[in-house]
Structures are given as structure tokens and as C-alpha cells.
């Protein structure tokens, strides 16, 4: 292992800072030890942000989509980030019925002329868009289907999906 060759100590344990120089490490059996360091680097990455709506436990994220045991079927991708649009794109290419729910604009931060071209291309591929809309809740229907209530303008609407994927940003 490269780490060992370079004389780097490696701990596969959960770390908690006790003070600016001491870290408590807990292994999978709950056994604890404390290590010290002059400098500490936090590089724990990010994960998909959780939605804050009732029934969010019936939804999945872009991390989960690659581990499904069965095909997602009719899928709602919530968000217009590149993660949401990328998932919508490949799910549609795999033959799924795909809808993207967009709160305001596609690909915020990217050139909007190009972002809208990407939207038009997805649309031409058969991806449906629900624009200026936000989800309100998810409840379970027959055969585990997800009933998504959402607000579009002043209207409250609902639609049934097999899979609801949230891609509304990442947090740490």
C-alpha cells in the first residue's frame, strides 16, 4: 500500500476533534483512542442535500440511483442542477419516463443560452419539465408508488411516480 511505503499511518475510524490538536478516533466496535497532530486537514467531502418536505424518506438521491435493484420506472428528478439534468438524461436514454421539476432556472451559474439549449435537447428526447414548481409532500400510493404534491404558481397539483430523485444541491 502506498500509504505504508510513505510511512503514513492510516486509521479507518470516525474522528472527532477534542481541541485544535487532539482527535478522538472511534472504530467500528466503539473502541476509542486519541491521536495528536500539529496540523489537521478536513477533507470529508460532501453528500446530496436532504429535502425538507413530509415524505422525503420515500425519495432517493443521485448516490442511490446507481444501487437500485430494479429499474426506476417513471421518475421525477427534482432540481435543475447538472446532477438532476444528467440523471434525467441517462434515465431517459435508458427508456424511462422522466420528468424534471424546476423551481426557477436550469443550470444556475452556467451560461443561460447554453443551459436553455440543453433543456430544449432534453425536451426533444422526451424528458418532460414541470417549471416554476416546488414539491410539497410525498405519500405512498398503490404498489409503493409515490404521490407527489407540488405547487406551481398558485395551483396545488399532484402526480404519481415510481421513483422520486432529489438533486437540490450538496451539503457537508
Amino acid at each position, binding site marked *: 500500500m502506498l500509504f505504508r511505503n510513505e510511512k503514513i499511518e492510516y486509521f479507518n475510524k470516525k474522528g472527532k*476533534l477534542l481541541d485544535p490538536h487532539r482527535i478522538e478516533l472511534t472504530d467500528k466496535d466503539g473502541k476509542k483512542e486519541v491521536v495528536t497532530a500539529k*496540523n489537521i*486537514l*478536513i477533507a470529508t*467531502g460532501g453528500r446530496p442535500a436532504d429535502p425538507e418536505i413530509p415524505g422525503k424518506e420515500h425519495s432517493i438521491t443521485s448516490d442511490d440511483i446507481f444501487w437500485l435493484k430494479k429499474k426506476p420506472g417513471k421518475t421525477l428528478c427534482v432540481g435543475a442542477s*447538472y446532477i438532476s439534468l444528467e440523471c434525467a438524461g441517462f434515465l431517459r436514454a435508458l427508456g424511462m419516463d422522466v420528468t424534471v421539476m424546476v423551481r426557477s432556472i436550469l443550470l444556475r451559474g*452556467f451560461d443561460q*443560452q447554453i443551459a436553455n439549449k*440543453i433543456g430544449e435537447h432534453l425536451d426533444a*428526447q422526451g424528458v418532460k419539465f414541470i417549471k416554476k414548481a416546488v414539491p410539497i409532500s410525498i405519500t405512498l400510493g398503490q404498489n409503493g408508488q409515490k404521490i407527489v404534491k407540488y405547487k406551481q404558481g398558485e395551483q396545488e397539483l399532484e402526480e404519481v411516480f415510481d421513483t422520486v430523485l432529489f438533486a437540490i444541491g450538496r451539503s457537508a
Partner: protein
Amino acid sequence: MGLEEVGVKTEKNGKVIAGDDDKTAVPNIYAIGDVCAGRLELTPTAILAGRLLAARLFGKGKRLMSYKYVPTTVFTPVEYGSCGWSQEDA
């Protein structure tokens, strides 16, 4: 992780606030990559930031990571690559 307790500042979404030198609010604690607030969430930038930080910490350089003009891409069915400013920002 006990970040707040030792004085590391974080945002509401849990991301760590670090300066251009990757230092957090605690001078000997650094943060790089996706865990940092307001950074590009890209693997190559995180790798380079880590290399430059290691060089600075061990006296082999002074360069700071630059997040200006980082090329990126969107892997939608019609793929899109960009570098620099969007028309809106320009």
C-alpha cells in the same frame, strides 16, 4: 466531527468556511475539497488544492489555489463544456 466545538466555522449546510489559504477559523486546521463552502465541487481542483497546501505546509512553495478559469462540463445527452465566464457574469 466536533468542528464547531473547537472553533471551526461552518455554514448552515454543514460546509466548512476556509480562506484562500485553505485555513479555517482555527489556524492549524485546514479544509479542502467539497467540504468547503463556496468552492467548485470538482475532484481535480480538490487534488490540486491539496498538493499546493502540502507544498505550503512543508516549505516547498507559496502558491495558492486559483479557482478562476477552471474548465468544467455537464454530462447531459448533449454534452456541454465551458471555461471562464458565462455571458451573464461577463
